[in-house]
């Protein structure tokens, strides 16, 4: 299933409802839904914040392929690609005074899913992020 969302953080409630509906239909439980919700939110908000001038909406598709849930987020009008798989390392052991919030979201995405893939097409200016999570996975 696929749905188009406006480039607005206020859409998050609708994004979560979309995921919950998919989970109900495909018999996916909360131990898988909650990590997926987190991963999708972090990437969706990243697309909204890092491409505020983007003129188009953001498409999210959800599919079940055997034991895997496959999520694809597509941003359709990206001038400067951002590859989350190449994001900088976050030091999660630093002292409190040295902690920064930046980068934490993508760090968490990597812990929430089994695979993350990024593809940018310069011709169409499309960024596509694919997440794969096993319904049997032991990730949080």
């Amino acid at each position: 299933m696929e749905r188009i969302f406006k480039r607005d953080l206020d859409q998050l409630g609708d994004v979560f409802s979309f995921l919950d509906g998919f989970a109900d239909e495909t018999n996916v439980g909360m131990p898988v839904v909650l990590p997926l919700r987190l991963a999708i939110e972090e990437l969706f908000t990243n697309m909204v914040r890092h491409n505020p001038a983007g003129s188009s909406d953001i498409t999210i598709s959800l599919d079940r392929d055997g034991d895997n849930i496959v999520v694809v987020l597509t941003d359709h009008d990206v001038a400067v690609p951002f590859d989350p798989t190449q994001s900088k390392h976050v030091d999660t052991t630093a002292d409190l005074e040295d902690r920064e919030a930046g980068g934490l979201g993508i760090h968490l995405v990597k812990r929430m899913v089994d695979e993350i893939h990024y593809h940018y097409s310069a011709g169409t200016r499309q960024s596509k992020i694919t997440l794969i999570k096993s319904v049997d996975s032991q990730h949080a």
Partner: protein
Amino acid sequence: MLDIRVVDGQIQLAGVFDASQVSAAEPVFEEIHKSAVVNFEELEYISSAGLSVLLMTQKRLAGSGHELKLVNLSSHISDVFRYAGFDLIFSIE
């Protein structure tokens, strides 16, 4: 939606603490100037946006020798805190 209540100095969170709730949550946490307990019992979900609000508050309070203490985290939220390394900078019970 996120519901935040301050009851007898304890901050009680309920619902979903996502990026769309930060602007509502920040003013509540900015009013905290002493050590306080944050009760997660009814919080279903938190993302990095919510973690950032807690982090900024903890850093500010640490300047005056105070801190937030977090109680009643669900197993999913506990995992999120651990993956973020926040279990090292917050007291969690």
